[in-house]
């Protein structure tokens, strides 16, 4: 028998999964919206590729984690 039996659990509390999923997806969709609004409202001359890429990266990070927590909250423990 091990001297100290340390149970391992998820790095994020399981009870937070649904709330985290909704939160992260909402933030991710906001940033996606701002990305496309920027694309629609700026003209070819004023566009800055760096700003577009940064917005896209942040949106994809939030959307990625949000969809992971959505999968976990719905019972697909990946």
């Amino acid at each position: 028998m091990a001297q100290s039996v340390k149970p391992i659990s998820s790095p994020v509390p399981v009870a937070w999964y649904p709330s985290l999923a909704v939160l992260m997806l909402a933030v991710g969709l906001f940033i996606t919206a701002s990305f496309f609004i920027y694309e629609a409202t700026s003209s070819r001359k004023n566009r800055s590729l760096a700003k577009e890429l940064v917005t896209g990266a942040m949106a994809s990070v939030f959307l990625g984690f949000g969809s992971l927590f959505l999968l976990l909250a719905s019972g697909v423990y990946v």
Partner: protein
Amino acid sequence: MHIFFRRLGSILREKPRLNMEVFVARSRLTLIFSLFALLFLSSSSLSSSTSELQILTAERRIDLASHIIRVVLTLKVQNDEASPASNVLLAFPPAQAKHLALIQAAEVAGKKRKKSLHPLDVKQSNHADGPNGAKLYSISLRNPLSTGGSVSIEVSYVLTQSLEPFPVEISQSESQLVLYRDSALILSPYEIKQQTTVIRTPSTKIESFTRVEPSTQLRTELKYGPYEDQPSFSYSPILVHFENNNPFAVVEELVREIEISHWGNLQVTEHYTLVHNGARHKGGFSRVEYQSRPTISGVASFKHLLVKLPPRVHSVYYRDNIGNISTSHLRTGYSKSELEIEPRYPLLGGWKATFIIGYGLPLEDVLFESDDGKRYLNFSFGCPIAETLVNKIINKVVLPEGSKNPSIVVPFSVERREETSYSYLDIVGRPVVVLEKENVVPEHNVLFQVYYDFHPMSMLAEPLMLTSVFFFLFVAALAYIHMDISIRK
């Protein structure tokens, strides 16, 4: 032996005529001497290995209540030889040895109230087989038994598939009668001074039993003995024909998939092929008669099965190829959960049912971290259905992607191999440790451990994969927006 002496004398008396004949006579002498010496040595070694010890009292209790036979053998062994003994040998007839599912031994210290049992190691002996193919098992004693000393040992073993239904086929309204073959005398490589065998049957209805004086029947107990001063390897075959209507539930194959997800869940999926292994059912099945007279019709059949699950189990499902089976009840508790399932039809002799039971467990109940940084899964090995024999169990432990160096700790022998399985969000696949065992009884429901290495950063692989997919979509949108494909300038 006196023949050798006579031959020797005749050779010595012979007068050799030539040198050649002298040489031949001398070589014949040496040959005979060496043969004699060899025989003497071999006979002494045989006797020293098997009749060192003497069993003063032996009591054997055979419990035939269910189709899994449990036997408890209490021996008082005394060492009569000059050298201390460190092993005690047990013998089993070859038919019993083939169906032996589990054997355990313990040394009994103290008497009555203060009795304490110290477990001892039992393994198959590497001695040659006894007469008529008797298989030998060796118990290693804690302290070597000194000359003249005695020790009390309690051996318990489990036999499976040893009750033969006779008659082989019965109709719906008949009761099930089975045969049990054994020996009135306990088979042992040592001499037994006094022995008794008590057989307990599930009901008072015993059709017949072989009488080996002194043998008595008292309601549900058959007593053979006491027998005095039996030589080693003595065997007296007996046959007991009795009624046993307890459910003969046998799972032909059980495939258990245990999937670990580090995000907080352990998912267990079990595929069962259940069969009623008693007397086969012949004739038609009348549902009306079965339901209206349950005490007469279908007494050897079974309808319910009890599945014992760990506590805090969630998302339990019970289904088969057709779909969900709703005839089940789940009772959760603090120390255990019980799932009582009822297959779609009652099982009579020879009938089969296949179904799938699945459930989830919280990860902190089963996954732990050991002192050297490895993670290990602590889970039960056998079949969770109560009082069921499993002919072959296949446990597949699916470790998360990125796990390395799996190793197992199981209290009994299993066959191990490795596979890879592909599941959600997998790139290289998940390592699977497959453990197979045959002839598994409820006593094998003990915890086993699977150790593996896992770097916590490997958990990030899954969200990063999803992030990169979304980023690829954004980059594709950007590329489309920045691309100028207009023909007119």
